[in-house]
């Protein structure tokens, strides 16, 4: 009885500060404006709107593109950090976790510092060839780079855990049998790490779908769902519209995570549940 009382503070807090507000959010998204009766009209309006459909498509596009890039880049990184005996191993691991502590807006600003109108790269081009080149910070390319930046530490953290559990013999045996280094990565390590890759992809996708700061700093026309939620609330004050968009975003994220969970279950027969929350999903 005494022990059960330990759960009282957290249950009280999460009921008041999370569950009740979420229920009110859901209710708001289902309420008819004047009469107060229940309606799916706000959702229908979201689906009918070309702008929202485009934002949804953009969210899916940038989330999958940045996740794919992050997986390709970070897979050999995780192998190196866990397997190498280099003196600098720890320092490299620390360097790779730094983006984890940065809010999305700061990451967006980093992209501006390099690829904004007066960014480093366009400045260097100006010096060399007399005109500014590659000032793509405020386009899809700039946002993609920002998303990749906050996904690197998350993907590396998830993959490192699985690499450290892998036997060194797997690499040694395949090398002895004559596999080339690239074959070791693609034919030996990739299949062995597939569950971790899927798990890392889940973390990465969920982070990308919810990302607001980076998009708010960089977007000039490439609209993603979190931006539409923000502007429907702060600019046009339509809480019921913002609420239905939020619910749609949460459902979309959950559906993709569940889908990947299914894939992961099939990848590992005994089916260890997919831990989607590893590494944190905020940026």
């Amino acid at each position, binding site marked *: 009885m005494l022990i059960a009382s330990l759960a009282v503070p957290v249950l009280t807090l*999460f009921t008041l500060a999370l569950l009740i507000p979420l229920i009110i959010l859901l209710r708001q998204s289902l309420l008819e404006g004047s009469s107060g009766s229940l309606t799916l009209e706000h959702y229908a309006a979201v689906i009918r709107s070309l702008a929202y459909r485009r934002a949804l498509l953009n969210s899916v596009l940038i989330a999958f593109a940045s996740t794919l890039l992050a997986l390709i880049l970070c897979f050999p990184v995780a192998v190196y950090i866990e397997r190498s005996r280099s003196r600098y191993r720890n320092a490299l691991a*620390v360097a790779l976790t*730094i983006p984890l*502590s940065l809010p999305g807006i700061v990451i967006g600003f980093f992209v501006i510092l390099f690829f904004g109108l*007066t960014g480093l790269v366009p400045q260097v081009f100006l010096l060399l060839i007399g005109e500014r080149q590659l000032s793509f910070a405020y386009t899809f390319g700039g946002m993609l780079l920002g998303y990749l930046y906050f996904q690197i530490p998350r993907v590396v953290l998830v993959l490192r855990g699985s690499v450290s559990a892998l036997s060194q013999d797997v*690499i040694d045996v395949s090398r002895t049998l004559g596999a080339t280094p690239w074959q070791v990565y693609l034919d030996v390590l990739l299949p062995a790490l597939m569950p971790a890759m899927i798990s890392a992809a889940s973390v990465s996708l969920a982070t990308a779908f919810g990302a607001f700061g980076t998009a708010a700093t960089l977007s000039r026309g490439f609209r993603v769902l979190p931006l539409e939620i923000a502007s429907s609330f702060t600019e046009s004050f339509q809480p019921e519209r913002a609420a239905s968009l939020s619910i749609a975003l949460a459902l979309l994220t959950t559906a993709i995570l569940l889908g990947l969970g299914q894939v992961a279950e099939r990848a590992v027969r005994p089916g260890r549940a997919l831990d989607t929350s590893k590494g944190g999903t905020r940026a």
Partner: protein
Amino acid sequence: MTHQHRGATDPVMSIGQGFTLVAVVVCLAPLPLLLVVATTANWPLGFWAGGVTLDWLRQGWEAVQPYTFFSLRLAGMVLAIDLAVGLPTAWLIARHEFTGRQALVTLINLPLAIPGIAIALALILAYPLARASGLLLLLGQVVYTLPFLVATLAPALAQPALIEREAVARTLGASAIQRLWHVTLPAIRSALLAALILVFTLSMGEFNVSFFLFTPLNKTLPVELYSAYITNRVEVAAAITAIFLLFVVPAAIAIERLGGSKIGQA
């Protein structure tokens, strides 16, 4: 025999090293550039154009000082509540099997699956009158950081060696308070420290929830950073960002030192 492939000359490791260097350069390169821009008199004209200056840093610090102190106070309050609520919760999850345990774990991790702006929006819609007091800002950050604290503390509390030592202390006649103070807390010291630094860092850098819940009197440093990005000149924005990083980057390094990849994986 098995070790000879692990050296730097092993081509498998060389590929890994190449990718790692690219990733590390991407992660770190913005930091020196930030300092250069923050100390350049007129950045749009080039590297240290118009000379090196500390004016932007001074001006930036004056501009963000009140928001920095507000963010520090807020982080302190978030820490206190997280600890008071999270420590018993982590202990419960680590030490006890009970009906609804899985449901409790799912509930605590729920904020990780829901976009921050949705949490903020839900809080505003539920308690519109509490917004002005800054209470919603505090609640939003607590809900958002608590999963990380619990996820860092629970594994440390679940170590079999620690449970054994507590049992020994008990048979030797130590009271519950004595066991907590002399056995449990020292054993989870580094996890506890890492969890506290993690919550501090997350709170200092939180933007998605804070952007919707702030008021003119309760404005956090990241919210002020964002308005600098939108309205201020690039040198001042860089200077303010550099000041902000002084608070979060050392903390991030400390977390990695304390527990590496095991920390904060909620």
